[in-house]
């Protein structure tokens, strides 16, 4: 099949970007979207032009590297699918496709379609964990976890950290990402001791990184390749509210130091 691509090209973080048009000819409908870009890149290289930089790694929809805005939709037209698992047979011969990087204040463009998602790591570092240093853990079956709780935790933990939720949100909010981790750990007994401290510090970090606020548009859950429900945001908001009423975890009597 033959396609026309309008691709965002930007040579560096501080450079000005622009759309450049490329013809992608004789593309196999069985190739993935990234394989289509591979083909275009090989041709660009041989023609003496700079290939398009884009993040990718596992190409199985689990590492969360790939991050393309395709015709204005994060990860493109197929629901619940990361760009790497999107195949060209979902397009028609002759289609004109616009490809852009994630657009968000907290995700600066590094080059072409690559953005810096380091803010996500810093949100996790702020509290997205259970404090359990190696060694000394009790027997794994000593803590019973109801199946429904384990399933709910797993639903939220399926997040691949790709950032599509931020890119899709008109506010550039990281609420779905942050709340998914809070909901995962909050559903489990192991996550309880740090529950309110966690929500406070993660939300504070989210704000520091320059993500926008959540106004419950719901674009995030539509864009999420793992179909994480925005119910997790409700859970985060509830925990946050409780934490505020309690006057902050560190100031609560008997709260300990975590």
């Amino acid at each position, binding site marked *: 099949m033959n396609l026309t691509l309008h691709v965002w090209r930007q040579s560096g973080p501080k450079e000005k970007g622009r759309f450049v048009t490329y013809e992608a000819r004789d593309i196999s409908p069985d190739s993935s979207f990234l394989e289509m870009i*591979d083909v275009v890149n090989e041709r660009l290289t041989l023609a003496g032009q700079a290939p398009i930089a884009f993040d990718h790694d596992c190409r199985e929809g689990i590492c969360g590297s790939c991050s393309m805005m395709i015709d204005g939709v994060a990860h493109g037209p197929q629901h619940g699918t990361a760009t790497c698992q999107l195949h060209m047979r979902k397009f028609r011969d002759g289609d004109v496709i616009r490809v852009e990087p994630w657009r968000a204040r907290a995700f600066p463009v590094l080059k072409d379609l690559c953005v810096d998602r380091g803010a996500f790591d810093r949100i996790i570092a702020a509290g997205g964990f259970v404090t359990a240093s190696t060694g000394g853990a009790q027997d794994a079956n000593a803590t019973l976890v109801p199946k429904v709780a384990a399933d709910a935790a797993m639903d939220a933990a399926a997040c691949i950290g790709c950032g599509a939720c931020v890119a899709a949100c008109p506010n550039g909010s990281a609420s779905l990402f942050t709340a998914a981790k809070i909901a995962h750990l909050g559903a489990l007994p192991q996550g309880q001791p740090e529950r309110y401290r966690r929500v406070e510090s993660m939300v504070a970090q989210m704000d520091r990184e320059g993500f926008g606020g959540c106004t419950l548009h719901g674009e995030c859950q539509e864009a999420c390749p793992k179909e994480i429900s925005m119910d997790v945001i409700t859970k985060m908001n509830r925990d946050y509210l409780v934490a505020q009423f309690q006057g902050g975890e560190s100031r609560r009597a008997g709260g300990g130091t975590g």
Partner: protein
Amino acid sequence: MMMELNARIPAGPVEKIWDEHRFQMKLVNPANKRRYTVIVVGSGLAGASAAATLAELGYQVKCFCFQDSPRRAHSIAAQGGINAAKNYQNDGDSVRRLFYDTVKGGDFRAREANVYRLAQVSVNIIDQCVAQGVPFAREYGGLLANRSFGGAQVSRTFYARGQTGQQLLLGAYQALERQIGLGAVQMYARTEMLDLVVIDGVARGIVTRDLISGKIESHAADAVVLGTGGYGNVFYLSTNAKGSNATAIWRAYKKGAAFGNPCFTQIHPTCIPQSGDHQSKLTLMSESLRNDGRVWVPKAKGDARAPAEVPEAERDYYLERKYPSYGNLSPRDIASRAAKEVCDEGRGVGPGGLGVYLDFADAIKRLGRDAIEERYGNLFEMYERITGEDPYTRPMRIYPAVHYTMGGLWVDYNLMSTVPGLHVIGEANFSDHGANRLGASALMQGLADGYFILPYTIGNYIAGAKLAKVDTSHAAFREAEAAIAARTRRFLETKGTKTVDHFHRALGKLMWEYCGMARTEAGLKTALEKIPVLREEFWRDVNVPGSDAELNQALEKAGRVADFFELAELMCRDALQRRESCGGHFRVESQTPDGEALRDDVNFAFVAAWEYLGEGKAPVMHKEPLQFENVHLAQRSYK
């Protein structure tokens, strides 16, 4: 100078030596630990768990990964599960049985002492991961659930849906991020290790490239740990992530670390076949599908009819025919070779005749479509997404693909390579899996090394080593930086007519043909002639666009492919010298009268450890003999 190959396995009964060794090892005073810097390269299960644990102990840790976040290391893609000898199912499991299954599954080419220790600490891993909040599958009563996996008669595999690797990695990643937040680990994402620095015979640092700015930087340390994964991408097409590479271990090999059993690769039988030349990687379809799917090809060569039009009498259910007792659930190496055989005979299906059918029609008839959907719905959906074919109405097409490498840098019992101070963990070392890894054991080994073995043994090394003060002003760092700069210049100035991927694909085809599922003396010798020719062409005619002072993905790839070229040659050499068949290594000359792998324990019960002798010189092989005192050597049979 001959390399010293001492496995340093403590004496004593196998079940006691790890406990005794832990007591005998020297400790570093808690207040002194912060004076020592440890570099950890790689942030997968092994690297992230090691970096987090070392930081918790008080060491200063620098951790490096080429991905944009440590959470994206390729451990994330592991599906099935993680083994542990918990015996929660009361079905007769024990540390000894997991030890036995792993040694036997590895076709008796692993070290008994290491495997026993792995089985021992497997139980601690599950405890640790649960404490971190890893959402393992549960029974209604709240206890942990288990499933069965190949090569075992007990149910000892713990899992988190089909995303066990992801959840275990996120557990380790979160522990790592906690240490980063506390300032105990300095994390360098999008940073690739390009060389190891050895000073006075001891590993003292690395040189890296910042993949955004292109800046070359030196980092000094008291010990270096590589947890950089396997080298399956030498075949170009594999189930590995696109970025997975051998550069870190290959650079270390060239600086004196012996390479163990490079030819031991695992080829997984059930992957989605290649659909054309555009193919960039292969996707695994879980082994569990073979519980209900039947594998077949047409009896006649070149039968191009649609599968539904091939009558029952004209189909060959070859696994059921050849292995009546195991049938479609024959082990990975056996099933892979059988698929290759029928395709070589011209009976393969799909594009290029490189595929066999995995047919669920009988199972759907017997159990109903709903039952099959309940069991495999997500896998069927993934298959449909990639191939555009509906596996409920048309049999899946599958073909074997490179999946894992059992070979890697040789390490002693303390996980230290032949370069003092350089430790190697996870898939990057030559590992505890012998010649064939059992399903659900890769995750176990990565976390065992990172959480529970390396943190002890590295303390013993540091406490016992007399390390002079070294910083990055040392001439050895300048030398390594200059060598990297020269190599980079060469890539950029060649301005040839072919892309890096072109050469990588060509190398992959050679390796698949001559060093893949069936290896012959003649084929390996052919490969050893063709690889250097192709490598020479690569250096003469490769086209690497752009500059070194920017994000340049072609330049990154060029460096990795250059190293794959050299490693490929070593793999063929190793496969050539091992004139026996064992596990994933099948030498056509060494088979039983009915075509099964035939081991030669008299001549080949050893680990091959290859030593680099310099540019243009043939490497030399050293042998570490393997002793089996606890597991009886026996021929495997699945008839």
